[in-house]
């Protein structure tokens, strides 16, 4: 396993931010970490990346204990933070060059800039860039040491759909190279699209951890969505597939000459999240 977290606990005073959670992540896997604000996502990421020491439990990253050997871990990971934390008076290139100097690796900064579509702005000061462009610089920075694990906290936040899609493609391309990705996001469809497994965290505890498909199948409601013509338009009818009366009602509808469309509809991760936690994931 690339990431092994056991019985992690962290408290801010009396508030238990992370409450005895355990999980493992394999090589080449993308794990989506989902939860509302204050659920404990950021605290977990901070512990995994050695920014906070857990009050209880242990973390092993790439075979190293993060608390005892943080720098051995930092050599081999990349972190993209949620908040913008770049040097505003340095250019895009200077920012990346500075961080590359902190590692042993000598990356090809030009191709990295090309990858995130920032080559044209390489010599512009970061403070002159838009929020979305700064986000792309931060993403490029997380790749600077060709890391084995990427910790990405809301990597597409503030990006336009095209840029966000480009970033997602890079994430998938890193996965195809065998990189492990720990993804924190509010975007359920993004998590669904990218993650091999998804963990729902609520009030400091992991309340569900599985593949998106399994979560949707196990915890979501599959329904038949039927559209019937009426005199002046259409009316919709939803039939839970697992419900007792659904087969007979479906048969009736199939024989109805007013039937316009009929198809199955899977549960979404959003619905699964609400079912598991009893609360909506705030955007």
């Amino acid at each position: 396993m690339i990431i092994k977290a056991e019985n992690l606990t962290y408290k801010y005073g009396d508030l238990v931010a992370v409450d005895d959670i355990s999980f493992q992540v394999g090589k080449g896997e993308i794990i989506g970490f989902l939860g509302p604000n204050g659920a404990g996502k950021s605290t977990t990421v901070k512990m995994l990346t050695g920014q906070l020491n857990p009050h209880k439990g242990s973390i092993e990253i790439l075979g190293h204990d993060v608390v005892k050997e943080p720098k051995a871990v930092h050599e081999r990971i990349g972190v993209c933070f949620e908040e913008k934390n770049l040097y505003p008076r340095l250019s895009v290139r200077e920012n990346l060059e500075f961080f590359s100097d902190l590692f042993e690796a000598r990356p090809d900064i030009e191709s990295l800039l090309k990858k995130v579509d920032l080559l044209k702005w390489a010599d512009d000061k970061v403070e002159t860039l838009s929020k979305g462009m700064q986000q792309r610089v931060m993403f490029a920075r997380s790749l600077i040491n060709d890391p084995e694990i990427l910790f990405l906290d809301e990597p597409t936040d503030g990006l336009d759909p095209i840029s966000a899609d480009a970033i997602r493609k890079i994430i998938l391309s890193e996965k195809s190279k065998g990189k492990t990705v720990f993804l924190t996001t509010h975007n359920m469809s993004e998590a669904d699209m990218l993650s091999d497994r998804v963990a729902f965290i609520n009030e400091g505890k992991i309340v569900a951890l599985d593949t998106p498909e399994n979560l949707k199948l196990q915890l979501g409601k599959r329904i038949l969505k039927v559209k019937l013509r009426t005199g002046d338009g259409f009316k919709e009818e939803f039939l839970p597939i697992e419900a007792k009366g659904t087969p007979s009602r479906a048969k009736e509808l199939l024989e109805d000459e007013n039937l316009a469309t009929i198809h199955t509809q899977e549960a979404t991760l959003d619905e699964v999240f609400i079912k598991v936690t009893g609360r909506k994931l705030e955007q």
Partner: protein
Amino acid sequence: MKSKIITAIIKKDATMAIRNNLILIAIIGGILFSLIYYALPSEVDDTYEMAIYDDGSSKLMSILGMSGGLELRPFDSLEGMMESVEGGDYLIGIHVPKDFDLNISEGIRPALVLYFNNGIPESSRSTFEFIIGTALETLTSGEVPDVLEYEVLGVDTSGQEVPLRDRSLPLYIIFALMMEMWTISTLIVEENALGTLRAVLVTPATSSDVISAKSLVGFAYTLVVVSVILLLTQSLRGDALALLASIFVSALFAVSLGLFLGSLTDDITGSYIYVAVPLLILIIPAILIFIPDASISIVKAIPTYYMVNAFDSILNFGANMGGVLRDVGLILALDVVLFFMGVFSLRRRYS
């Protein structure tokens, strides 16, 4: 700590500092100070004023009156004259006793008492003595009789005459040091406020690397700015060892204080208050150069007093290392305390 990492942080901090407006202010300040230096008078006024109380009507008065560059200010009483000299209105007062000319001509040697203000520079004192000696020579048409007696009013602190522009040098140096302290503090606060410290600390760089790099950047900047001021004002003079030691301990003071103040807050605007208050206090001893009559007993509690003293002694009075050892030692001791306070406080904040 890895030298490659520290070098990278130094390079980044140097670039950030250069692009920081505070550095610009420090540079402009340095140039401005140099201009002020040249705007101040480079020579002392050649005209001397002398208070005089004559019990009789000595010819010495008229002989002195004819001396070039000397203006006599007669007094009605000896007490009045002494009071005026002691108060600093005049650097010198002379008491000519009754029947002075007669006694001199008869071979009696009456005492001619010269009263000096305690702040009279050595050069002025010599000048007065020479003028009076010449006048006596004229009065006796021959050898100068041994009649002169001296009294210093107040504590005798007579020194050398120093032009105002040179006396002001420590002010510029102290101001530059304080500006550097501000810059270092800002670099530290900014790193926290921007969140970049978090990004740096999830790389192989450690908090020790960051603190070391910032200390070195601050130290180098301080040395450069102070040296530039001394070069621009053509004031790189005096005992080299003493000057280097004074610059070194003063730069270390600015860095250490900057580290400590930078560790007190994460808010850039708030940090200005944390810096401005000590800055205003620390600049006082340098400003007092222009107010020689001000009481200095409280000022001695301000560390920069010893810096001002050291730079003034070296640059203006030719002091060597032995002459400033006490000042340098005191500043160094304070540097050590402040540096460890700063590092300890920063480590706590960074952990």
